[in-house]
């Protein structure tokens, strides 16, 4: 399959797909914006997004757009009347006093539109009611006139909404409108990760966007599971909080910071004697010793810093020590076999090659201690730490030769 295939214009569903993703992501944005721990959200139930907070139900109809100039929300908008239909259908299932209906649009409401009154929950909606009744009447009249004339009735997309509105008692229409809010000019789908990131106050700023992206991945999966009935329809805020904690844990593990790349050991630093004795066995040059001492000091300081900040790091450090020991062992045992018939000076040379492998190639050939770790000194220096413990060595017979 070639990459740059343009989407099939006939079955183009990008906007619809993005619209659904927007529902999912908007639900997360709303849930994370709540302060109440017992808040919960559901997607595609009675409305696009449903939020329960402190006994109140908030219904959201979302009108997403990826256009550079999103369509405005007007009295003649198909989006408005489709929304009205959805809400009227939901009325039998809700307590109106505990419910608010939100039309969330990326587009704007024209400033001279009567719909502007819906942008403020406390405003009077009687003028709007009259305007909407007039619009519904116009739509229905034009449809019946066309029908009588034998023509195709217009406004078919808006008709169900107008009919449902018309069928409501006048007092019920006003009661419904009093519970309606329009949120205009809202964030579009591409901006949601940043909006979520802004709400992750507990996480250091540099990690917030990454955490938001991971949270959104988890959230999308939960929404899909809820639609497939693989989990409960409603997603609790407490579940989201637990997930945020896990993400923080992952980020902590994944972003170890290299603190000592730019430091060298103090002039009077004296390494353990075994470090130099191991190198002497393979006739290491002064440059080999100098590199080993510098790396060992950096790795030792790094390990100390990690563990004094968090004792949990002990098991991670020890686990990685075992990885390095195993990688060394694979090479050392092979070298021992190769050295069986060699002269002592050649054996030493082979050992020097192994030592130099720890400096030059191991940092890129062995998997890093954590995702994204790139500082070479940790692998180089940890091999020296392990050499001091005689868990690794450079000479084929280092254990025998260093036996005191």
């Amino acid at each position, binding site marked *: 399959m070639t990459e740059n295939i343009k989407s099939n214009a006939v079955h183009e569903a990008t906007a619809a797909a993005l619209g659904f993703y927007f529902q999912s992501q908007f639900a997360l944005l709303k849930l994370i914006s709540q302060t109440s721990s017992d808040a919960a959200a559901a997607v595609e139930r009675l409305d696009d997004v449903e939020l329960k907070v402190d006994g109140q139900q908030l219904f959201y109809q979302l009108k997403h757009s990826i256009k550079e100039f999103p369509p405005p929300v007007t009295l003649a908008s198909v989006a408005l009347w489709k929304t009205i239909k959805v809400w009227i259908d939901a009325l039998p299932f809700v307590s109106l006093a505990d419910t608010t209906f939100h039309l969330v649009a990326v587009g704007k409401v024209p400033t001279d539109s009567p719909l502007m009154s819906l942008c403020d929950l406390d405003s009077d909606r009687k003028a709007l009611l009259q305007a909407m009744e007039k619009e519904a009447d116009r739509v229905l009249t034009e449809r019946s006139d066309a029908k009588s004339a034998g023509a195709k009735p217009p406004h078919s997309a808006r008709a169900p909404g107008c009919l449902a509105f018309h069928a409501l008692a006048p007092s019920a229409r006003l009661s419904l409108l009093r519970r309606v809010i329009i949120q205009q000019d809202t964030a579009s789908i591409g901006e949601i990760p940043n909006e979520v990131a802004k709400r992750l106050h507990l996480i250091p700023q540099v990690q917030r966007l990454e955490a938001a992206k991971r949270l959104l991945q988890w959230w999308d999966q939960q929404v899909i599971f809820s639609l497939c009935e693989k989990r409960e329809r409603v997603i609790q805020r407490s579940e989201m909080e637990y997930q945020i904690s896990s993400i923080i*844990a992952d980020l902590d593990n994944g972003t170890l910071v290299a603190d000592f790349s730019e430091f060298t050991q103090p002039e009077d630093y004296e390494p353990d004697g075994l470090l130099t004795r191991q190198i002497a066995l393979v006739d290491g040059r002064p440059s080999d010793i100098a590199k080993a001492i510098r790396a060992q000091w950096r790795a030792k300081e790094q390990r100390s810093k990690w563990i*004094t900040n968090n004792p*949990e790091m002990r098991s991670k450090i*020890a686990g990685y020590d075992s990885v390095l020991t195993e990688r060394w062992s694979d090479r050392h045992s092979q070298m021992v076999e190769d050295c069986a018939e060699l002269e002592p000076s050649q054996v030493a040379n082979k050992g020097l090659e192994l030592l130099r492998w720890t400096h030059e190639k191991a940092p890129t050939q062995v998997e890093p201690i954590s995702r994204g770790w790139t500082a070479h000194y940790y692998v180089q220096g940890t091999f020296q730490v392990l050499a001091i413990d005689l868990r690794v060595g450079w000479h084929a017979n280092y254990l025998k030769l260093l036996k005191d």
Partner: protein
Amino acid sequence: MAIAHDIFAETNPAYCASLLATFVRSYRIGNKSEPDITLCYAALPLALSGDLTPTFNGTNRRTGLLEWLRRSPVIQIRLAARVNGSLDIVTEAIRFGCFSNLLEIKTDGKVAPGMSLVPKQLRAELTQDTRKNFDNIDRIGHWFASAGSTRTVFNLMGLEL
């Protein structure tokens, strides 16, 4: 799992056993009984965590566990992992404490002070940071003691027994 010499030194059992002995004694002052051994597994990682040291600033023995947690919610982030990841360190420390008579494990699973005391001159020989760890675990002992049962302490910290 084999522990390299430098890591062993950072978490050496003698030092950690001395911290636990301090914890047990301060707990006993506040509670009139000894702490369950499980509390040692929460107290020691908290005291050893250098990144949590600033959260003890402005606290004293009377601050209380709940208030400490309320002031610094960051303590609870990954607390379970911190505690679980330190099990070996605490076990080694308890074992060393029992061998050196700093601690004594009772038949009911409580940890009591042993016959030996943490040497008084020890404090003078410690670095400022290490001394602070002893002050911190002393506070933790008081806070745990006044918080109620072991289960309550764990619940307050969002941990499960």
